[in-house]
């Protein structure tokens, strides 16, 4: 493998730890911000992937999330609002050897950058997109975002928003992202495990992290993420396992016709065998999971979808290899003389 300077990189890697991924920059999010946890879990999982840190790149857009690359001791690029996926696509196309992460927020990814998110995912660009969803514009001090709930009173919507919120997972699914997951800033083990899965995926990985903004939208997800209630109000997905939730592990999701419904194991003859079994490769299950939410349902977290398809950079590389095999390595002198030529003596 060679890097962008044409140097050959060594396959033997030193063992890295979280500390290796901590940069010398002072972290400047508000005290109590959910971003601290996401940063810490991200730094923690980085050694798992076997990439030397110089081969890892974090690219962000604008918003509070956009600062994360400054705190990672890897290569980093803090770009412009909504456009991080475009830089990541170009970088990965030019440099398939790199591991590329995109750090974004609900406004950055779903509003100003919505088009890029859609197309990056549908192309299956081999990048991991981590979207911090605090359902508010934090950096600009508290305006409604595309995930703000209908009627939300903010500085920009003193009478409540009249815009319906978008479901990030449904957007990712519509774009046929090959990996879609959701986790929570405060559930550090779950977040770590989810980022770890995303990091190991080949292709576009989209991770929505439910994140609290304690300044402008405090308690954004508290109703179901608080430690006391989360087992009852969140559905922890596991591939091949029935969809069970609840402190007592006695509630589950069953299909009634094509509609999901909540049932209680042991009531009315319901057993575990009646429950829907999670399948990360099933698009209909993914569709259902992308659309159920608190308070009607427990909020699904974990890997909603994981399938494999050739990636954008892989197909681009293959096309070049095929064209070169079929036509030989390009000869510029010959190309300049293509078509009819004549000589003046």
């Amino acid at each position, binding site marked *: 493998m060679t890097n962008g300077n044409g140097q050959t990189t060594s396959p033997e890697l030193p063992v890295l730890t979280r500390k290796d991924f901590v940069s010398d920059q002072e972290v400047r999010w508000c005290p109590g911000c959910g971003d601290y946890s996401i940063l810490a879990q991200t730094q923690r999982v980085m050694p798992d992937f076997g990439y030397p840190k110089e081969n890892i790149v974090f690219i962000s857009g604008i918003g509070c999330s956009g600062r994360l690359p400054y705190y990672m001791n890897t290569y980093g690029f803090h770009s412009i609002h909504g456009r991080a996926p475009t830089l990541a696509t*170009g970088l990965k196309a030019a*440099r398939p050897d790199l591991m590329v992460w995109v750090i974004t927020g609900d406004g950055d990814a779903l509003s100003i950058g919505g088009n890029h998110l859609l197309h990056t995912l549908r192309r299956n660009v081999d990048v991991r997109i981590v979207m911090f969803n605090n359902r508010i514009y934090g950096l600009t001090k508290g305006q409604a975002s595309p995930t703000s709930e209908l009627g939300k009173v903010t500085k920009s919507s003193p009478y409540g928003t009249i815009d319906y919120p978008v479901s990030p997972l449904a957007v990712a699914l519509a774009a046929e992202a090959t990996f879609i997951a959701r986790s929570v800033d405060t559930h550090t083990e779950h977040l770590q495990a989810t980022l770890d899965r995303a990091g190991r995926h080949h292709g576009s990985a989209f991770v929505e992290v439910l994140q609290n903004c304690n300044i402008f939208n405090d308690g954004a997800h508290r109703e179901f993420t608080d430690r006391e209630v989360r087992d009852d109000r969140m559905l922890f997905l596991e591939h091949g396992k029935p969809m069970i939730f609840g402190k007592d592990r006695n509630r589950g999701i069953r299909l009634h016709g094509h509609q999901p419904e909540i049932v209680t194991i042991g009531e009315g003859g319901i057993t575990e065998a009646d429950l829907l079994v999670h399948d990360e490769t099933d698009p209909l299950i993914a569709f259902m999971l992308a659309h159920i939410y608190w308070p009607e349902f427990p909020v699904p977290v974990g890997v909603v979808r994981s399938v494999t398809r050739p990636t954008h950079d892989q197909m681009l590389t293959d096309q*070049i290899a095929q064209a070169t095999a079929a036509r030989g390595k390009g000869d510029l002198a010959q190309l*300049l003389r293509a078509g009819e*030529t004549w000589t003046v003596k």
Partner: protein
Amino acid sequence: MTLTEPRPAERQLERVTIRFAGDSGDGMQLTGTQFTRTAAAFGNDISTFPDYPAEIRAPAGSLPGVSGFQLSFSSTDIHTPGDEPDVLVAMNPAALKANLGDLPRGGALVVNEDAFTPQNLQKVGYAANPLTDGSLSSWHLFTVPISTLNARALEGLGLTNKQVDLTKNFFALGLMFWLYERAMEPTLAWIDEKFSKRPEIAEGNRRALRAGYNFGETTEIFHERYVVPPAHLAPGTYRNITGNEATALGFVAASQLADRPLFYGSYPITPASDILHQLAGYKNFGVKTYQAEDEIAAVGAAIGASYGGALGLTASSGPGIALKSEAIGLAVMVELPLVVVDVQRAGPSTGMPTKTEQGDLLQVLFGRNSESPLAVVAPATPGECFDYAIEAFRIALKYMTPVVFLSDAFLANGAEPWSIPSLEDLPRIGVPSRTEKAGFYPYARDPETLARPWAVPGTPGLEHRIGGLEKADVLGNVSYDPDNHHRMTELRAAKIAGIAHDIPALEVFGPEEGDLLILGWGSTYGAIRSAVERLDDRGASVAHAHLRHLNPLPENTGDVLRRFRRVLVPEINLGQLLLLIRARFLIDAVGYNRVRGKPFRIAEIEAEAERILSTMRAGVR
């Protein structure tokens, strides 16, 4: 008619300009291109100007559907596709109506009389048939029943009426080949190759071409044939090339000269799309092309590729450049190499997408937030697009900066013979790559060029973060320090200004000092140069200087301007370079500005220069 009949007289001409005009479905672009190839291969100097509608298929026979292709071929060095045609080939009433105004009185007019039906005449508002009502008596009219003769020639081939009709442009082409004594072989060979899988269509086109040629040979309609001898071009191997072709090839060459892969991010837009089409075919040169979801993604991906060590390239036209502006500002801030091609078209907004203009100079210089300097180059001819594509990347890499390459619709689609350069003669492009860990800082600058190092991901020990936020000088960390911002703003400006030491001086054609200097940039080169040649032939003291570097300007620009009593700046905009020149050098230059979607004619530049010269003479008296 017998074989003993005397041959028509032959007349030698220095230069001929033909315009083929017809419906956009009539194949006029192809007809013009075939004539161009043939004339070029014969050794004429050529210059072409395709003029096609934005609509792919406007209603048949309508004025908006008229498509034209003008070409000039000559035995002497020419710079433009000709002010006005000597011959107009009009395939229908709409083509006649749309183009007759450009044909000088006495010019030859060849029309397909079969298309002059009452219905077609009515469509374009002719109350009477102009072929018979005497209204064309000022021109040399040749009415030829092209459709009928062509259909007869193709009888028995089993083609449908529609298929037969589609070949009639080759009848017209054959007739022009006869009239100007051009060989049919190159076109016959092209037909064989193009329709190799459809032999009956190939035969139809061959017959149409020959029928047109033989019609000229066997009828007495034309009393003269014309010969334009080969031009005395400089020794070398030539090909015909359009600006967009030369642009694409130049970027492939830049990639090889810098030994870095080319990444091209682009979104389809007229008149830049051909660059994407062409580069997409060069996969075996390691060229990676990417048709993005929009203009912003196209430039974003190019910046991402540059960040990774590739040559990041994007192209568009004015509206797309407007969309890319914020990202170009990012490239200014992060100081990465990037080339942005702007193939200008007539605007504002959607404007006239297929028509030419020079309206984006101020946009590319100043159309970004805050102080956001970058380099701008502008080729003057289709062939020069190759050289300036290389020059754009030379500057982008050496100075770690975005560079705008300003082309336009006239350059992009116009063609001329191009002396194919020898690759050995092209200098290698240096790259400020950095792998050394000791003393590395992301914004430590080369003392001479002020370029920062290009430390790409994958380089061990150089992990660092860049971005759109202001950077601390040298260290590259985020900084809100007021003095630092002022210093960095000046450094970015000084870096671009310093490129002036590294580009050729502005050359003057004609007298080194005198009455009038005509200063131009971009595709107006040919019209200005031809006008100045004519003026100088008449003994006027008029010179021509043409800027290829628009930011920074060559160091001697002010000196050159001050050596002339008057400076005239013709532009296809309302005076954008003029504004810069006046502001920068405090010189009372004047503009000549027309925005008609068309290139300048030589005569209008000449007339304007004459007007200025005469007022100067009057002033002296």
